[in-house]
């Protein structure tokens, strides 16, 4: 494909950039509805306790309070995909997030005051905060709403996957390493805290939710189920999102609570988390412990991987429990691997529960795998780059799990980052080294494999698009997909602009209203450019079938002779052209009269995984490799990330600006995971619910990031593109940890790699 493009591949500013930088964008926090009330939630003070009594009488008497609800006041269903999560808790609390009561009042201050007036009597119970304790036979049952799917009463979810002959491959292995890895709890830190405005009309029984969800149609169904309503009576309007990163994939109790308050009061109710509440009560990345054993033959060829993952599920289930679905792809298929066994167990504890977070389990899995590969290389005496190149994935590979790599830039990505880090590394100059050889440098590599063409996990992984050209030549794209800051609106407008020759300034994207837009499964799995992009292409094709015959007729030529560009339709043969809007008017206002509007639904050709989790679940697969150079200060333990080289198989670059944003943001997020971030919990309490002690990287911490896109032009993607959004985060922590290990010669097996951990490792007094 060497076609010249007008706009595809050209740096294009986001079409919503202006309203975002000027402050015009309406975030959830900005919404003001007539007669709006303010909601607030009373959460438990004790992570684990029986509730002896709840007295709301004083709160109800406070001036300005419109309603106070507890579990006794509502008729609702449990939420979460396991239906193990009551919206309001009754009788007992099991984690520090637990919602006990909620109020709606005429001001935020009154709502807060009312919370203080609610009296709750607790009888503290002993909690279980360690999944290995909770899984013991004699441990008390933590969640009482589960269906007995598993014999052990505290198991929330279990996955088992295997391929190949493990015993045979073990026997073949000349080198074997076994290691345990521990991953921390980190959280999304969205700039906009969780928010919702609910507007229930008692007149027509309809509920409008101004929501930050990233899966509006699944959400509509989930909310309806929770509230025992008809889904179609619920209209979801998606507000501008101040950061998502996967946090808005599930529905959490505050959302139906806000709706319930509005339904009780018959007035709109707005509920906004404080920053502290955001840290305490919004989801985290799944924390887990891996026990990995892996082998290689005498030439460094991988033989087997045997992985046990133990997930701390927290007190209720959210999507965190399903992240092993993604992890197993990394263990089964990142680098060629003849045999693999993967078992994961998600265990209820009295900790906070995890949701989905960019990468969906993959940063964790990649950390464990890539650390193990370094350990294997050390064992074999092989270079860290060579072992990776030798085992890299290749084009046309069908992995034992059934993933089909129609295109694959893995090896190329590795070659690039290995070469580039060689060029950028500089030995320490003597003055830096100092008389005590204070600084040590190291290089680390890691790769990643992630779905890049959607992921078939729901009955449909499709997306609908309606296109409408008005009589003045402007195009409206009504897409099922959602913009959550990733720049999908812009990419979709670019695709339509490319195909229809309409300038991007004349394209509007409508994507926020479930009453209007066609169905889409939601933003996840880095799927939007791929799936919604293909959907736009399909819709364009259908619309052209309507416009082209008319244009051909007016230009007195054949359809095949037409080119759409610069707002006109051109006949190549006759070098004549006609304005697009003229053709639209000719269709609309002349007999028989029709609108230039069409709808298309794109369903990717991916398959469902079978019972053994085998199958080609995505339309395309993304690969990336990163190499990192770090400098470790052996006096303080501080790790300074100098350069990060990122080579990523993106299929095709659609918008270089949007892509750079994803890459840089992802790498910095990965660096935070590697070095800084951890939500510290102790006996169920969160000790650092603020930006002071939860260390998010600042702009001053950003290293030099070098990006090398690899264009493999996947036959199924729009113009050959694959998903890119999650990938840049996934290998970063692994690569940084590998670099630190390389620098100081100590195996790193937990994140974040804090200065204190480094110093302890260096002083040899404590195992890392």
């Amino acid at each position, binding site marked *: 494909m060497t076609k010249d493009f007008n706009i595809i591949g050209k740096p294009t500013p986001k079409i919503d950039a202006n309203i975002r930088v000027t402050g015009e964008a309406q975030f959830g926090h900005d919404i003001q509805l007539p007669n709006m009330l303010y909601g607030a939630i009373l959460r438990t003070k004790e992570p684990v306790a029986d509730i002896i009594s709840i007295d709301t009488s004083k709160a109800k008497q406070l001036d300005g309070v419109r309603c106070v609800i507890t579990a006794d006041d509502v008729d609702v269903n449990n939420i979460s995909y396991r239906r193990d999560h009551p919206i309001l808790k009754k009788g007992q609390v099991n984690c520090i997030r637990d919602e006990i009561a909620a109020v709606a009042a005429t001001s935020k201050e009154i709502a807060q005051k009312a919370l203080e007036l609610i009296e709750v009597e607790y009888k503290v119970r002993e909690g279980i905060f360690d999944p290995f304790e909770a899984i013991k036979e004699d441990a008390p049952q933590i969640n009482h709403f589960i269906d007995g799917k598993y014999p052990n009463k505290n198991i929330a979810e279990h996955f088992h996957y295997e391929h190949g002959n493990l015993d045979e491959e073990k026997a073949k292995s000349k080198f074997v390493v076994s290691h345990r890895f521990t991953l921390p709890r980190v959280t999304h830190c969205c700039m906009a805290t969780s928010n919702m405005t609910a507007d229930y009309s008692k007149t027509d029984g309809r509920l409008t939710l101004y929501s930050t969800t990233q899966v509006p149609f699944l959400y509509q169904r989930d909310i309806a189920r929770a509230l025992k309503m008809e889904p179609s009576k619920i209209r979801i309007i998606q507000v501008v999102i101040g950061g998502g990163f996967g946090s808005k994939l599930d529905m959490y109790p505050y959302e139906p609570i806000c709706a319930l308050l509005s339904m009780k009061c018959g007035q709109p109710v707005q509920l906004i988390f404080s920053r502290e509440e955001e840290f305490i009560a919004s989801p985290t990345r799944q924390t887990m412990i891996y026990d990995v054993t892996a082998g290689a033959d005498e030439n460094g060829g991988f033989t087997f991987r045997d992985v046990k993952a133990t997930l701390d599920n927290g007190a209720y289930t959210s999507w965190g429990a399903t992240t092993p679905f993604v992890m197993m792809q990394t263990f089964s298929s990142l680098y060629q691997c003849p045999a693999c066994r993967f078992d994961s167990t998600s265990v209820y504890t009295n900790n906070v529960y995890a949701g989905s977070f960019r990468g969906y389990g993959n940063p964790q899995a990649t950390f464990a795998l890539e650390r193990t590969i370094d350990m294997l290389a050390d064992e074999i005496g092989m270079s860290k780059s060579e072992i990776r190149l030798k085992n890299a994935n290749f084009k046309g590979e069908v992995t034992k799990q059934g993933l089909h790599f129609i295109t694959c830039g893995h090896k190329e990505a590795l070659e690039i980052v290995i070469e580039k880090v060689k060029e950028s590394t500089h030995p320490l100059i003597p003055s830096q080294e100092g008389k005590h050889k204070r600084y040590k440098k190291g290089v680390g590599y890691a790769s990643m494999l992630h779905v890049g063409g959607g992921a078939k996990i729901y009955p449909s992984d499709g997306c609908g698009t309606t296109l409408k050209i008005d009589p003045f030549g402007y195009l409206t794209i009504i897409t099922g997909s959602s913009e959550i800051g990733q720049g999908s609106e812009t990419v979709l407008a670019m695709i339509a602009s490319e195909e229809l020759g309409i300038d991007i300034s004349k394209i509007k994207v409508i994507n926020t209203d479930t009453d209007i837009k066609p169905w889409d499964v939601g933003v996840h799995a880095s799927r939007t450019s791929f799936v919604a992009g293909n959907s736009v292409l399909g819709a364009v094709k259908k619309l052209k079938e309507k416009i082209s015959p008319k244009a051909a007729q007016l230009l007195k030529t054949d359809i095949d002779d037409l080119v759409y560009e610069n707002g006109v339709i051109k006949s190549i043969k006759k070098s004549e052209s006609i304005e697009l809007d003229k053709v639209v008017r000719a269709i609309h206002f002349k007999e028989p009269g029709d609108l230039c509007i069409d709808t298309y639904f794109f369903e990717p050709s991916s398959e469902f995984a079978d019972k053994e989790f085998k199958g080609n679940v995505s339309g395309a697969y993304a690969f990336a490799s990163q190499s990192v150079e770090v400098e470790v200060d052996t006096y303080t333990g*501080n790790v300074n990330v100098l350069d990060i080289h990122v080579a990523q198989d993106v299929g095709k670059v659609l918008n270089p600006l949007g892509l750079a944003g994803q890459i840089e943001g992802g790498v910095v997020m990965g660096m935070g995971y590697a070095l800084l971030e951890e939500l510290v919990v102790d006996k169920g309490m969160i000790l650092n619910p603020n930006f002071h002690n939860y260390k998010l990287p600042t702009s001053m911490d950003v290293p030099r990031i070098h990006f090398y896109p690899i264009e493999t032009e996947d036959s199924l993607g729009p113009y050959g593109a694959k998903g890119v959004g999650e990938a840049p985060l996934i290998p970063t922590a692994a690569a940084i940890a590998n670099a630190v290990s390389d620098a100081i010669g100590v195996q790193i097996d937990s994140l974040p790699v804090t200065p204190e951990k480094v110093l302890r490792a260096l002083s040899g007094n404590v195992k890392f």
Partner: protein
Amino acid sequence: MTDFDVISPGNVDELLLEIENNQSNNFRFGAGYTDLLLELRKQSGPKINVINLSNLNDPDFSSIVKSEINIRIGSLVTACEIVKNNDINELFPVLHKAANTLASKQIRQVATVGGNICTASPAGDIATALVALEAVCEILSTKNEIRVVPISEFMLGVRKTALKKNEILRSVVIPLRFFASLRMTNDRIISDFIKIGTRKSMECAVVSLAYHILQDDEDKIRYAGIAIGSSAPTIKFTKNAYEFLIGKRIKELNDDDIIEFAKKVLEYASPISDIRGSEWYRKQVLFNISKSIL
């Protein structure tokens, strides 16, 4: 959150009058509010008065003035103003650097010297540098009188200072010491601020080390102001380390001397373990960075 009323005196007379008027009330001073607002947000209790200093128009409170013998810094001078001041940058690099590592550029625009000292946090960056420089606090009372207190006697513990209820911190004074007599040039000064934390910005020191060492024409150390932050309930001036260095030449120090010096600094450290670092880590790092300065 504690509710409050704001009173904004425009000059020193009005200020002293307001302090006088509020002697039987609960009141606080507010300068840049980067500490005060957080504190009030965490508390609940009866309404208080805040005497807002940000409208105060008085050079003694808000300017940096150099004389033959000292530099006087008004309590309302911001971290940013310190960073931009050439005299401070040249004469007291330790103070320049400390002000420049405080929080972030945004916070530095409003955070004041007075606020940093009067919060009396063991982690105060500017305060740590001022302790190393043995600065002197100039305290103004409602009688319009000034009394002076050495800074290490001014800060008594977190949010505890030597101020009486009818007093306010007006300014701090740093003596020029040997600069005047020895006409010292830059290569005679070893002066810097080392702040340990995990991030490069927006970081409260896990430990910090401020040092200001002056050498004479024969390379002999004549002054060695060294202070440690986040290492004890208050910022400590490490007098024994000072005395150890006086009269010595840095290039003549051997490894054992350096270790002895670092041990003398460490004598003043009694850090706690908290979420930002363990006692072990704080001591270890303090020891390491103390060695690194010689």
